[in-house]
């Protein structure tokens, strides 16, 4: 499979998610962890571009980081898969390579 892009910065503070969305190719996966999980939530100012990314990529968000921040899994954008640490490992092994946008 293609590349797994891991983003860990808030989309409101840093542009790493924007850059990732520009460079992620069709069939790639994007995993949102740490402060990047804020990008996974519905009806924010960045939700439209994340939904647009879902048309070409799989998007995942890490559940422990969502919960740590008091955000609700129920409010995650439809189409984003919420995974735990085990799922993170599965993704890292399933894709050919991993790009961490730090």
């Amino acid at each position: 499979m293609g590349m797994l892009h891991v983003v860990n910065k808030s989309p409101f503070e840093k542009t790493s998610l924007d850059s990732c969305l520009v460079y992620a190719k069709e069939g790639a996966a994007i995993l949102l962890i740490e402060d990047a999980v804020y990008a996974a939530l519905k009806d924010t100012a960045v939700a439209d571009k994340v939904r647009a990314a879902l048309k070409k990529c799989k998007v995942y968000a890490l559940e422990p980081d969502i919960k740590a921040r008091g955000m609700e899994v129920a409010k995650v954008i439809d189409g984003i898969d919420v995974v735990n640490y085990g799922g993170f490992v599965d993704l890292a092994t399933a894709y050919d390579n991993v790009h961490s946008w730090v």
Partner: protein
Amino acid sequence: MEGGVVKKFLYVNRRAPYGSIYALESLEVVLIGAAFEQDVSLLFVDDGVYQLKKGQDTSGVEMKNFSPTYNALGDYDVNKIYVDQESLEKRNLTTDDLMALTYEDEDDDYAEKPSIRVISRDEVADLMEEQDVVLSF
């Protein structure tokens, strides 16, 4: 610090909790400043508004959940907590999503009153101008 100089301190919080150490460091500095009886205000803008999100549960990430400490600010006479409206809206948050921080008003028979005030961008600008010291985290 009786008879000491009291200055107006504004702590500007711009970052989310847990992803970096800034939020926790800011909170500790605020508590130290308040212990020395300074005139302290807190401002939460940009991702800083996430610090006040209620329901934080860090048991899955093995980090200390420091959000309950914001509830102690009232005990430290820190009762001017400003939140930027536009930053909330961008993140699809309202005051209902935030912890209900309160303080007891000694001049009003210890009535419990809300500490959080949501203000506009213009009011944020005015707030900054009023200060002796502005510290950004």
